[in-house]
């Protein structure tokens, strides 16, 4: 434990460097560069709003905000996990050369996506100004659903990056899974569109819980039910624990497969 903390501090600069590298590479040679982190969610929101807001006019107020609240958390999770899945393979140059804590590569993909999340938040605040959604004190609790999502994402990323090393098929399989997950999470359609008898099942979807907490803070200016908060926390903690366990158990075998 003590060694793990010392390792983390020693290699924290390395984490910063690979995050910087990944951000640089992401916008390599693009004219607008980092500006895309703002333009991306902005255009996506405009498109989705144009397409769906008419359809769900009666059930959703402030459609752009409704959509953004959900999608910024969901894109963070799906982006991080999809990249984390092959983070060990992509970085095999490092892993074969020298000892570095391997989870750093997972954390770096998550950090890069977190930067995107941060800029999406700015877009959200901007959109609230434009559409006239009131700013309330409840907004200062936004870090709660974000933290829960981050913890859950770290756990899931650790699991995926581990099995991504052993089974290369997982990459494709998970792509399909994420597509299904996107549609099964009420991101652009209202929760009320789900038949009553299936709504309990939606509580099995951690992302749905986090999105619900986020929306209730931003749009309704109130906390969701305690049940939702506890369930969300439970999912995050359990997923993180599973992630750490799986990763630690298998990390010494990675070099045989990369």
């Amino acid at each position: 434990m003590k060694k793990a903390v010392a390792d983390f501090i020693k290699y924290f600069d390395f984490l910063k460097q690979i995050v910087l590298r990944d951000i640089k590479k992401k916008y390599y040679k693009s004219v607008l560069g980092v500006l895309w982190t703002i333009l991306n969610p902005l255009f996506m929101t405009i498109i989705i709003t144009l397409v769906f807001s008419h359809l769900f006019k009666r059930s959703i107020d402030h459609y752009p905000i409704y959509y953004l609240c959900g999608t910024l958390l969901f894109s963070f999770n799906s982006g991080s996990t999809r990249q984390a899945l092959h983070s060990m393979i992509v970085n095999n140059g490092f892993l074969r050369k020298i000892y570095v804590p391997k989870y750093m590569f997972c954390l770096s993909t998550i950090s890069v996506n977190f930067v995107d999340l941060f800029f999406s938040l700015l877009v959200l605040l901007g959109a609230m100004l434009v559409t006239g959604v009131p700013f309330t004190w409840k907004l200062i609790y936004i870090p709660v659903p974000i933290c829960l999502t981050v913890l859950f994402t770290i756990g899931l990323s650790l699991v995926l990056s581990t099995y991504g090393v052993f089974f290369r098929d997982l990459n494709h399989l998970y792509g399909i899974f994420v597509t299904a997950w996107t549609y099964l999470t009420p991101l652009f359609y209202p929760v009320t569109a789900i038949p009553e008898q299936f709504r309990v099942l939606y509580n099995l979807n951690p992302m749905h819980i986090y999105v619900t907490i986020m929306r209730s803070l931003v749009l309704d200016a109130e906390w969701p039910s305690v049940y939702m908060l506890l369930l969300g926390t439970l999912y995050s903690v359990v997923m993180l624990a599973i992630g750490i366990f799986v990763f630690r158990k298998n990390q010494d075998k990675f070099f045989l497969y990369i």
Partner: protein
Amino acid sequence: MSDLSVRVEDVSMMFNLSRKKEERFKEYFINLIKGELFFDEFWALQHISFELRQGESMGFVGLNGSGKSTLLKLISGIMKPTKGKITTKGSIAPLIELGGGFDRDLTAIENIYLTGAMHGHNKQFLRSRVEEILDFAELQEFANVPLRNYSSGMISRLGFAIATLVEADILIADEVLSVGDARFRKKCEDRMQSLMKEGTTILFVSHSVEQVRKVCQKALWLEKGQMKMIGSAVDVTNAYSRSLREK
């Protein structure tokens, strides 16, 4: 025993070589259900033991596939041994697969910060050393060129410069002196000998018997993963050369 630098105690390393690589996914589930192993066990190293004191240097000789690189990777901590124990004291600078951690899209300077951080150095320290590294690698005028446009020799030079210019207690070098032209090779050899004088322990793999004799005091001869001979560099390399001639 306070100046002990590297201790390798009865180390063995086994690899599972799967027979049909392309069927791994299917095989895995069959294995899982049957609870059987379909792997061929391959012992890359068996019962290796030796000790090195601070400032000593050891060369490793042997044919391809005798386990030299595996042993160095175990000592540098990239892999863990199947059996046995390895203890090292102090920081390690591994020169294995030079340039392995480099990113071809980044410039030399950006790569110095990246791989330097990988070796566990902080930014201020690296900033003070950037010039020195570029000088040694003779890449001053290409400092802001992406590595994509470098020749393989230039990349190896940069790799060597980064790994050796920062102080390390143990230097692990795998075939590094085979890079670059004769002049740079000479520079590398000088650099390694001066490191040794400063008290750096050196573990050195080379196919060139002359280089081992030049750089190292001790040598270990590996054959098919077993220790064939250990002793002074001159004795071991002589015996090794003789066996090569006989074959």
